[in-house]
């Protein structure tokens, strides 16, 4: 820049003039390759392939996640299809008042929380335990076969999974009741019993996803430096000690990240599986927020009320994931962001 100690220095008017001159010159310079703008152009010219590859993801986000947010406003409007989103009148928090005075909705919220809690309690450790067990299998062929078998249910459509469950728990001819019969017990029509819905649902979820979910943890275990184990062997550790003192601490960051993600999805109880397994007799324990939204919003056409319920759902999930993330960051220096 200008050396203010020589020449004109001192006179305020002249300094203003000088600064104006600099500003002009800077603007002129902004078309030469030294400025941010030019650097950005250069950058795009050089790296455009990366942006082309990025584009589908961004478009997907815009079309399926950001654009629908516009429609979210109907949660605060008396929406009618004929008037459209923009022209429906505002009603403030009326839908939320309706929601929270609706016993079925409250019940659905509690059911969601209970099922999610059970899922977290039993479904979250399952893939970790499975991965740790796979890690202890030394026979390569046996290990691969076992892994393939537990991965399989993940690739089966929920409809078929539900079919299998319904058949297995059928009152007559279902394998579970046949086995109960061997012990002289009466057959139970499990799927009509509210008290059985949660165990069956959570169990099915574990059966379906635990194997596939273990892949992430197996990958984390594979990343542990093998000489840690060798060093422990020389120090005299047995396999059990190595699991507790090396493997689990080493994959703890992965476990925490997966836990944060899981907590973020707590309100998203597997919707299809509930729809496929529940029936009016078990609504009492089986009806979750998403199925309630589906029945109220889509089947009975109360889109605005359903949007309000969905927004509430998202808000809870948001708060949960933020909390989990900051707790994890505070206590274990691991966080998603």
């Amino acid at each position: 820049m200008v050396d203010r100690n020589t020449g004109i220095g001192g006179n305020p008017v002249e300094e203003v003039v000088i600064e104006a001159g600099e500003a002009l010159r800077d603007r002129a310079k902004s078309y030469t390759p030294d400025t941010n703008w030019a650097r950005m152009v250069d950058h795009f010219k050089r790296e455009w392939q990366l942006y082309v590859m990025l584009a589908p993801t961004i478009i997907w986000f815009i079309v399926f996640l950001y654009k629908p947010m516009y429609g979210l406003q109907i949660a605060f409007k008396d929406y009618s299809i004929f008037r459209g989103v923009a022209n429906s009148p505002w009603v403030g928090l009326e839908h939320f008042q309706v929601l929270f005075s609706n016993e079925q909705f409250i019940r659905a919220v509690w059911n969601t929380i209970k099922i999610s809690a059970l899922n977290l309690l039993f479904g979250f450790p399952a893939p970790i335990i499975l991965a740790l067990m796979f890690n202890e299998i030394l026979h390569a062929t046996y290990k691969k076969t076992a892994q393939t078998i537990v991965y399989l249910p993940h690739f089966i459509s929920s409809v078929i999974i539900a079919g299998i469950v319904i058949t297995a728990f059928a009152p007559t001819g279902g394998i579970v009741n046949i086995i109960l019969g061997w012990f002289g017990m009466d057959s139970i029509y499990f799927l009509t019993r509210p008290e059985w819905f949660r165990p069956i649902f959570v169990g099915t979820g574990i059966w379906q996803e635990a194997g596939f979910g273990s892949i992430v943890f197996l990958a984390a275990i594979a990343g542990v430096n093998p000489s840690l184990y060798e060093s422990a062997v020389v120090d005299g550790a047995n396999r059990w000690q190595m699991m507790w003192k090396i493997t689990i601490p080493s994959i703890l960051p992965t476990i925490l990240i997966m836990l944060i993600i899981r907590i973020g999805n707590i309100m998203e109880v597997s919707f299809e599986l509930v729809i496929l397994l529940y029936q009016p007799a078990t609504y009492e324990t089986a009806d979750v927020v998403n199925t309630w939204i589906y029945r109220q919003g889509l089947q009975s056409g109360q889109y605005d009320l359903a949007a309000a319920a969905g927004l509430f759902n998202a808000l809870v999930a948001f708060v949960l994931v933020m909390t989990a993330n900051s707790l994890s960051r505070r206590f274990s220096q691991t966080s998603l962001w």
Partner: protein
Amino acid sequence: MAGVNLSGIIKRYGAAQVVHGIDLNVAEKEFVVLVGPSGCGKSTTLRMIAGLEEISEGDLEIDGRRMNRVAPKDRDVAMVFQNYALYPHLNVADNMAFGLRIRRMPKDEIATTIAETAEILGLTEYLQRRPADLSGGQRQRVAMGRAIVRHPKVFLFDEPLSNLDAKLRTQMRAEIKRLHNRLGVTSVYVTHDQVEAMTLADRIVVMNDGRIEQVGTPMELFNNPANTFVAGFLGSPPMNQMKAQLTETGARVGGSEINLARPINGHAGRDVIIGIRPEHVTLQPGDQTTALPISLDLVEPLGSEALLHARFAETEVVFKAETHGNIAHLQGVSEVHVPAPLVQIFDAETGRALSLEH
């Protein structure tokens, strides 16, 4: 404390044999260095001693007890790994305590052992840090500390210094030597760095391709290499080797006749390889020296010495010369003088050292 005894140790991976029968006696309190090029089976041999690899054939004894089928933890050895193998989730103190806790040593004993060892290694102020927050040299010390606190019969080191920069390596090398002098624990140390081998070892074991080429003290190996491999492996730069033919009075190389100052005993006419250490030549003629005409390529100053890269008898040769603070006088060098008693002679076919005794 105890010796380690290997006899006829063989290692096979499936059909591939990678160690072909190692016989080695490591005496009590001895520091033995296994050295050799990459892939020669040093680590494999060490890991067989540790029990991390199964021994395919042969016998391993530690302290007079056969160890082939004994679990690593019952061999009473401690190993220091190349990448240190520190537990990233534990701090320095817990890393060092790991093996002791596994062995259920009482808490107060662990605390005193660790405090003592940390003192020896200068780690006292880092005890609460995680490995990620330490420098390479400090990590290396923690790895050593973890081995020391166990008070094992034998220390095993697998290239413990190879991840450090040159300066730190020199420093840690001296520390390991001091530590060994102080603790006197039988040690087997693997490296591919011949300087480390020379400086640390009571005895060096030079390995090549799964076999032992020679065992001896550093100076034995340096002065009397058993074959051309050992001659070329130890020393930096390595010994110059050139094809020659024995005559009645010496050896003919290219157009020159080198005085060997020893009786040829009827070997005249035999094809040999003669070896001349770069540091053995002088620029001035001396007792029993032969002048070799060289054509100088390049002078590399190293400070007090310089390397002369040259050609002699169609072979690339390297010699060392004193600079006396100046390399100008080295630029015009056209001959060097080789002291006869220091010339090594090897059989051209087998590469073995020739004594010419009979």
